[in-house]
């Protein structure tokens, strides 16, 4: 039995379909993609063929969301992550790359890009981070200089999920150096645009099925019509994007933890020591009970946050930060405990469990480190307190 989060019939279909893909396509392939660090195109093509790239895009743009896209995105990300947090990221990273278009683009831009993303024909990626601009996102140095009806982009983006495999990039660049955070703008740049190339591909600890690369812009000319929103609104678009995307990172962390817990419980019933399954030891039983409570608590926080974002009454920054931060801290601890339950076998690559920990770790870091999330939560608390007085 599962907790009831009020998913509608279509959302239950989405969940079952993602679960079926995870079981039949992701589980058999995950070790190979982790080992070879290759992009999981066969799984991605299946996700596309099953219409799941459309779950976070509204029906008028070729998707199947009806104002419930963030919840849908979390459902799919959780289910895929139960099998592999790395493969799930090709899906979730496309969601992240698409959100600036969903949240801030013009009607014309939405019609131009969203249908191809919804059908899974083209993947998306989000390009903000730079070598000297991680947590301090406003410190980006990539520039976009107006030249007639175009902008000319120069600079290097770093650690971009889906880099090289995505075709549609939402890229942030400074259009007015004098204005600091209010001087950044967001652009859509398509793969193949002259002056835009893919740089170094990273060799990573976890999420190895996902590609992480540099994006290099050398006098890359894009039409001004590909700017999302007005000049100077880029940073605002990025922050609005994170408000909507962080529950997605939370759901990735949640899926990884839930998958690890299931494997650990199954294993504890099979492993015989001292003539009985290790699941009969109270020491392990209490560990598993704690893990399960943490997983359900994260799930409740994430889906409540997702529903709040889908039915907005204001900015959900605080809750988004909480879902991402709580779920990712929980996930790393649950994966550590899952390995402990597997004992020596858990440390071996022959068993799938060590990969869960490697995949979980990134969720404490990207889309804002958990220190940044705590900053966001605390600053919201203090602001709310000040407003009450």
């Amino acid at each position, binding site marked *: 039995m599962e907790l009831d989060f009020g998913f509608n019939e279509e959302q239950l279909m989405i969940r079952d*379909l993602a679960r079926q893909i995870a079981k039949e396509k992701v589980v058999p392939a995950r070790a190979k993609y982790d080992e070879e660090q290759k992009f999981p195109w066969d799984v991605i093509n*299946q996700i596309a063929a099953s219409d799941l790239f459309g779950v976070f895009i509204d029906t008028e743009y070729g998707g199947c969301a009806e104002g419930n896209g963030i919840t849908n995105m979390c459902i799919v990300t959780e289910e895929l992550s139960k099998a592999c947090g790395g493969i799930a990221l090709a899906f979730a990273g496309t969601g992240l790359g698409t959100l600036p278009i969903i949240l801030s683009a013009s009607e014309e831009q939405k019609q131009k890009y969203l249908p191809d993303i919804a059908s899974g024909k083209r993947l998306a990626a989000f390009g903000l981070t730079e070598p000297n601009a991680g947590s301090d996102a406003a410190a980006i140095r990539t520039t976009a200089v107006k030249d007639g009806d175009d902008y000319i982009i120069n600079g290097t983006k770093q650690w971009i999920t889906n880099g090289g495999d995505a075709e549609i990039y939402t890229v942030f660049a400074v259009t007015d150096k004098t204005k600091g955070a209010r001087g950044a703008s967001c652009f859509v740049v398509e793969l193949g645009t002259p002056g835009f190339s893919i740089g170094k591909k990273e060799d990573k600890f976890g999420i190895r099925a996902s590609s992480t690369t540099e994006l290099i812009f050398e006098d890359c000319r894009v039409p001004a019509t590909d700017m999302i929103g007005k000049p100077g609104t880029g940073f605002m678009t990025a922050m609005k994007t994170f408000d909507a995307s962080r529950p997605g990172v939370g759901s990735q962390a949640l899926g990884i933890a839930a998958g690890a817990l299931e494997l650990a419980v199954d294993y504890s019933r099979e492993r015989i020591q001292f003539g009985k399954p290790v699941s009969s030891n109270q020491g392990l039983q209490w560990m598993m009970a704690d893990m399960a409570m943490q997983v359900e608590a994260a799930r409740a926080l994430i889906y409540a946050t997702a529903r709040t974002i889908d039915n907005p009454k204001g900015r959900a920054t605080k809750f988004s930060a909480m879902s991402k931060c709580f779920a990712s801290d929980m996930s790393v601890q649950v994966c550590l405990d899952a390995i402990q339950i597997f004992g020596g076998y858990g440390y071996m690559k022959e068993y799938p469990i060590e990969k869960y920990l490697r995949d979980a770790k990134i969720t404490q870091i990207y889309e804002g480190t958990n220190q940044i999330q705590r900053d966001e939560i605390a600053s919201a608390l203090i602001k709310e307190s000040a407003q009450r007085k």
Partner: protein
Amino acid sequence: MALNIVVCMKQVPDTTEVRINPETNTLIRDGVDSIINPFDTYAIEEAVRLCERVEGSKTTILSMGPPQVESSLKDALSVGADEVVLLSDREFAGADTWATSYTLAAAMKKLKPDLIITGKQAIDGDTAQVGPGIAVHLDMPQVCYVSKIREINDEVAIVERLLEDGHEVVEVKLPAVLTVVKEINEPRLPSLKGKMKAKKTAVTVWTNDDLDTDPECLGLTGSPTQVSKIFSPPKRGGGEMIDGENAQEKAETVVAKLKELQVI
């Protein structure tokens, strides 16, 4: 040209969960999920692919069984079938392979297909008789164990049969019955749009009143064979190793034992 394809589908218990009651030697059905017979999933996939290849074509899934078969028919719709028909009537119950293929053939006379595709056999009965039976009842040509449909048009299909020692290429006049093996394709997973369509598409249910049949040929009455007993085969014991100084001595021991068992 456009093809009117009918695929016969059987709902079977999920064999990954099958347990047999050791007392009665019958299947324990409680809590066991029902699935589309795995071999039929290849038949469905091939029909859907033909429809994608030959514009204007249509795939109808035909099944016989109790109302709960509707769930499997919905699954078939979610992977691309256009229509589904269920033959459900108490008169049909207890049918063996002869009576089943007779009843399915009666429905085929209404559906008038250009091509009938079935899985090579069902994983519960494993008879592989219903596909060929339909062909005989309809006086149609049949090609079994098809692993590839090379070409197809209004008149003929050129197909490959998978044999133990190779492939046989057969040209067959349509309408015909093909039974397919798993090598023919890789069935797709459903799509969300397919699942939504499946939810909205009604299952057509035909009873015996909808068919032109001889009541003597239906169900248990019409079945020339009956299953007297189902049992799990006894577990095979371990073999006996024969020791001896040399081949001569070992052979002598073997011969003595065989004589003792009255084998020779």
